C-alpha cells in the first residue's frame, strides 16, 4: 500500500508539472492571462508531492520492504540503518527521484518567495522549470519506476555496494545532486529571461541566490567526494580525473564562472548574453554529467548500473532541453541589447578574464573527458589521464589565480594597475621567495613549486580587499568573497604540498617488524581477524610514532563483504596539524609477512579544509544577499502597510 501511495504522489506531481507548463505557457499569450494565477500554487504543490514520493521511498528502504523491487535489489535487512536510509538514493531510480524532488522543491521556493522579477518572466521561468521536470518525471514513471513491486517476495535483499557503505558517501551524492539540480533553476531563469527579453540586473539578482546555493552544494559535494575517494579507495590520491569526477567538476567550473558573471550583470548591467549562455551551459554540464555516468558510455571506477536504454532516454532529454535552450539562445541572443561598456583594467575586466579562463579550463576538462569517445569512433582506444589534464588545466588555472589575487582590488568600470601596485607587491614578493626556496630545495617539480608559491601569495592577497575597511561594517558578501578566495589558496597549498613532499613506503612486514615513512616509525604488532555487521576483515595492529614521540595505534583493515561479495580496504589515518599518515593493509606475502603501504602526506588535509572554506564563503555571501533581500522586502511591506493605513 505504501509503495502505491508513493507512486500515486509521483504521478500526481507529474500531472501538476504538465499543468504548470501548460498554464505557464498560456499565461504568456494575450488571451491566456487568466491562467497566471494558477502557476505559483501548482508549482508549490508539485514540489510537496514529489517530496512525499521521495519520503515514501526512504521509508520503504528504512523498513526494508523487500516486496519493492528496488529495495530488494539494493538493500539488505542486515545493513546498518544509516545505509538503509542512504540506500534510497544510492541507486539509479532513487537518485532520479531525488533529482525530481529537488527540482520540484526548488520550483516551490521560487513560486513562494520570488517577487522581484516581472510577472511574465516569473511565469516563463516556472513553465521552463516544469518543462525540465516533466522529462524527468516521464523518465522515472516510464522506464525507472522506483516503486515497482516484485513477486514472489525474496527472502533477503542483494545489499548495497560495500564501497558505498560509508558515512561520507551517504551524503556525498545528495549534496552533489542538490547542486546539479539547483543549477536547473538558473537554467529556467535564463530561459524565462530570454523568452520575455528581460535579461538585466533584476533577472541577475533573482538568479544569483540560486546559483550561489547550487555552487555551495557542488563545492561541498566535490570536496566530500574527493575525501571519500582518498580514504576509501586506498590509493592515496585525492583526484583521479576520472570521468565521473570530471562530471562533477564541469558544472562547478561553469557555476563558478556564472557566479562571477551574474555579479557583473547584477551590479554593472554588463555581460548580458554571456551570463545567459553560462546559465544554459552550467545546467547542460549537470545533465551531461548525469548522462555520462548513467549511460555507462565511459568506463570509470564509478560503475553504476549501465543500461543503454536509460542512456538513450537521458540523451533524448539532453537533446530536447539543451538543444532547445541553445536554439532559443541563438535566435534571441542577438536581440539581447549590449550592456554597459567597461575598460579592460577594471573589476569587470578582471571578472571577464576570470570567466574566459574558467571556461577554457572547462573546455580542457570536457575535451579530455570526451576524447576517448571521439577516438573510439575512429577505432582507437585511448584513456586520458593526469599527463594531459594536469599541465593543460594548469595553463589556464595558474593565470586565473593571478587574476584572482588582483581582480578584487580593482575598481569597477576603469582602474589602473599602478594604483594597486603597492598592495600586490607583498604577496608577489612572498610568492617569489617561495619559488626561489622551492627551486633551491630541488625535487619538488615545476607545477607543485608554482602551486605552492601561488597558493601562499594568493592566501595573502585574498585578505587584501579587507584592508582599510571597517571590519564590523563590511558586508557579508565581501567576507564571503574573501573567505572563498582564501579557501582556494588553502586547497592549492594542500594539493601542491601533497604532490611535492609526499613520502611513500611499500613494505612487507612480519609481526614485530618496523618501517618508517617520513618522520614516522611504524611497528606491526599483529594481524587479527575482526567481524562487523555485514563484513569480516583482517586487521593490522600498527603502532605509529612521530619523531620518537609516544606511539599511536592505528588499524587498517582489508574487509570482505558478503552481500554482495566484495573486497575493500579500509585505510587508517592519523591527522596532525602538519599532515596525515595514511596506512593501507595489502595481501599476505611469503613467510608470514604482510604488505603494507604507508604514506606521509605533509599538509594534505588543507585540500579539504580549503574546500570547506570555499563553501563557507559561499554561505556567507548567500546570507548577505538573502538578508539584503529580506530587508528590502520588509521595507516594502512596511511602506504598503503605512499606505494602507493612510488610505483608511
Amino acid at each position, binding site marked *: 500500500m505504501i509503495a502505491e501511495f508513493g507512486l500515486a504522489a509521483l504521478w500526481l506531481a507529474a500531472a501538476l508539472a504538465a499543468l504548470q507548463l501548460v498554464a505557464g505557457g498560456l499565461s504568456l499569450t494575450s488571451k491566456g492571462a487568466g491562467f497566471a494565477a494558477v502557476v505559483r500554487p501548482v508549482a508549490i504543490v508539485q514540489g510537496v508531492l514529489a517530496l512525499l514520493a521521495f519520503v515514501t521511498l526512504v521509508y520503504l528502504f528504512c523498513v526494508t520492504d523487500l516486496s519493492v523491487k528496488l529495495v530488494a535489489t539494493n538493500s539488505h535487512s542486515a545493513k546498518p540503518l544509516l545505509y538503509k536510509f542512504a540506500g534510497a538514493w544510492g541507486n539509479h531510480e532513487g537518485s532520479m527521484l531525488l533529482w525530481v524532488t529537488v527540482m520540484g522543491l526548488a520550483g516551490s521556493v521560487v513560486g513562494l518567495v520570488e517577487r522581484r522579477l516581472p510577472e511574465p518572466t516569473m511565469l516563463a521561468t516556472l513553465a521552463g522549470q516544469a518543462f525540465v521536470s516533466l522529462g524527468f518525471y516521464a523518465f522515472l514513471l516510464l522506464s525507472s519506476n522506483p516503486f515497482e513491486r516484485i513477486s514472489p517476495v525474496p527472502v533477503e535483499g542483494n545489499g548495497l555496494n560495500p564501497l558505498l557503505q560509508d558515512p561520507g558517501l551517504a551524503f556525498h551524492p545528495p549534496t552533489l545532486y542538490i547542486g546539479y539540480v539547483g543549477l536547473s533553476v538558473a537554467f529556467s531563469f535564463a530561459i524565462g529571461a530570454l523568452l520575455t527579453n528581460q535579461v538585466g540586473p533584476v533577472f541577475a539578482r533573482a538568479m544569483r541566490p540560486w546559483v550561489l546555493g547550487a555552487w555551495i552544494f557542488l563545492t561541498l559535494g566535490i570536496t566530500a567526494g574527493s575525501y571519500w575517494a582518498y580514504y576509501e579507495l586506498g590509493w592515496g590520491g585525492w583526484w583521479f580525473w576520472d570521468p565521473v569526477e570530471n562530471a562533477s567538476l564541469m558544472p562547478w567550473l561553469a557555476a563558478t564562472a556564472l557566479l562571477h558573471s551574474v555579479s557583473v550583470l547584477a551590479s554593472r548591467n554588463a555581460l548580458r*548574453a554571456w551570463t545567459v*549562455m553560462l546559465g*544554459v*551551459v552550467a545546467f*547542460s554540464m549537470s545533465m551531461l554529467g548525469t*548522462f555520462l555516468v548513467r*549511460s555507462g*558510455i565511459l*568506463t570509470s571506477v564509478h560503475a553504476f548500473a549501465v543500461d*543503454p536504454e536509460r*542512456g*538513450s532516454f537521458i*540523451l533524448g532529454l*539532453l*537533446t530536447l532541453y*539543451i*538543444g532547445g535552450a*541553445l*536554439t532559443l*539562445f*541563438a535566435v534571441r*541572443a*542577438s536581440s539581447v*541589447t*549590449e550592456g*554597459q*561598456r567597461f575598460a579592460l583594467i577594471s573589476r569587470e575586466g578582471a571578472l571577464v578574464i576570470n570567466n574566459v579562463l574558467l571556461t577554457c579550463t572547462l573546455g580542457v576538462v570536457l575535451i579530455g573527458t*570526451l576524447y576517448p*569517445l*571521439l577516438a*573510439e*569512433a575512429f577505432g582507437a*582506444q585511448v584513456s586520458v589521464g593526469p599527463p594531459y589534464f594536469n599541465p593543460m588545466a594548469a595553463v589556464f588555472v595558474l593565470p586565473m589565480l593571478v587574476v584572482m589575487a588582483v581582480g578584487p582590488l580593482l575598481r569597477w568600470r576603469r582602474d589602473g594597475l599602478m594604483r594597486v601596485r603597492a598592495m600586490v607587491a607583498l604577496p608577489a614578493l612572498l610568492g617569489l621567495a617561495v619559488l626561489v626556496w622551492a627551486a633551491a630545495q630541488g625535487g619538488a617539480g615545476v607545477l607543485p613549486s608554482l602551486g605552492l608559491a601561488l597558493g601562499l601569495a594568493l592566501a595573502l592577497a585574498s585578505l587584501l580587499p579587507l584592508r582599510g575597511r571597517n571590519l564590523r561594517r563590511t558586508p557579508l558578501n565581501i567576507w564571503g568573497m574573501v573567505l572563498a578566495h582564501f579557501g582556494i589558496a588553502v586547497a592549492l597549498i594542500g594539493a601542491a604540498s601533497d604532490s611535492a613532499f609526499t613520502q611513500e613506503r611499500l613494505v612487507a612486514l612480519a609481526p614485530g617488524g618496523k618501517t618508517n615513512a617520513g618522520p614516522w616509525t611504524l611497528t606491526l604488532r599483529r594481524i587479527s581477524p575482526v567481524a562487523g555487521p555485514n563484513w569480516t576483515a583482517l586487521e593490522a595492529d600498527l603502532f605509529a610514532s612521530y619523531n620518537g614521540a609516544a606511539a599511536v595505534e592505528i588499524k587498517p583493515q582489508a574487509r570482505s563483504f558478503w552481500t554482495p561479495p566484495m573486497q575493500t580496504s579500509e585505510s587508517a589515518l592519523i591527522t596532525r596539524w602538519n599532515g596525515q599518515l595514511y596506512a593501507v593493509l595489502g595481501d599476505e606475502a611469503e613467510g608470514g609477512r604482510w604488505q603494507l603501504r604507508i604514506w606521509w602526506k605533509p599538509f594534505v588535509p588543507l585540500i579539504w579544509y580549503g574546500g570547506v572554506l570555499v563553501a563557507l564563503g559561499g554561505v556567507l555571501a548567500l546570507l548577505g544577499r538573502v538578508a539584503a533581500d529580506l530587508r528590502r522586502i520588509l521595507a516594502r511591506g512596511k511602506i504598503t502597510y503605512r499606505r494602507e493605513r493612510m488610505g483608511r
Partner: protein
Amino acid sequence: MMEPPRKRRWWVFWVPLVLFVLFVQLVAWQLRHPAERNVVSAMIGKPLPSFTLRPAIPDRPGLAQTDYTSGKPRLLNVFASWCVPCAAEAPQLARLKALGANIDGVAIRDRQADVTRFLARYGNPFERIGADDVSAVQLALGSSGVPETFVIDGKGVIRYQHIGEIRAEHVPLLLDKLKEAGL
C-alpha cells in the same frame, strides 16, 4: 551607454548549438555501437606458436603445437579449475564434442588435484590437456583471460577466437567456424 551599439556577428550565437549537435551525433553513434571491451588476439590468421606443455592430469596426454598438423580442425579451450565461467561453459563443450568437435584444453595456473576434481565434477570433453603454469602459452596465443576458445585448422593456423564462456547460442557459430576450417 552613450557609445553607438557595435554590430555583432549573429553567427557567433549559433556556435554552441552546432557544437552541441556534433556532440549528440557522437554519443548517439556510441550508444548504438557499444565499445568492444575485449582484447582481440593479434594471432588470428597466423600459425600457432611453437609450444610443448606437460600433461595437466595423468590420464590425458599433454599438448604441443605439433598436435595441430593432422589435417583436421580442432578446438583449443583455455580454461582453469578456479574459473567460474569455465564451469558454466562445460555443458556446451560437451555438446560440441557430441556434435563431432575435437577439443583440447590448456589449464592455466592450475594444480593437478584441482583440475581432476573440476573435470570429475563438470565432465571432461578434452582429448589432450596441457598445463600452462605461467600463462606462457596463453599469452603466446593472444588470449587475455579464461575461458577462451580458439578454432585451429588442420594446418595449425588460428582461425577464430571466442572470448568468454560459450553459451548455448554460441554453439552453432563455433560449429560453422569449424566447418569453414575444413571439418
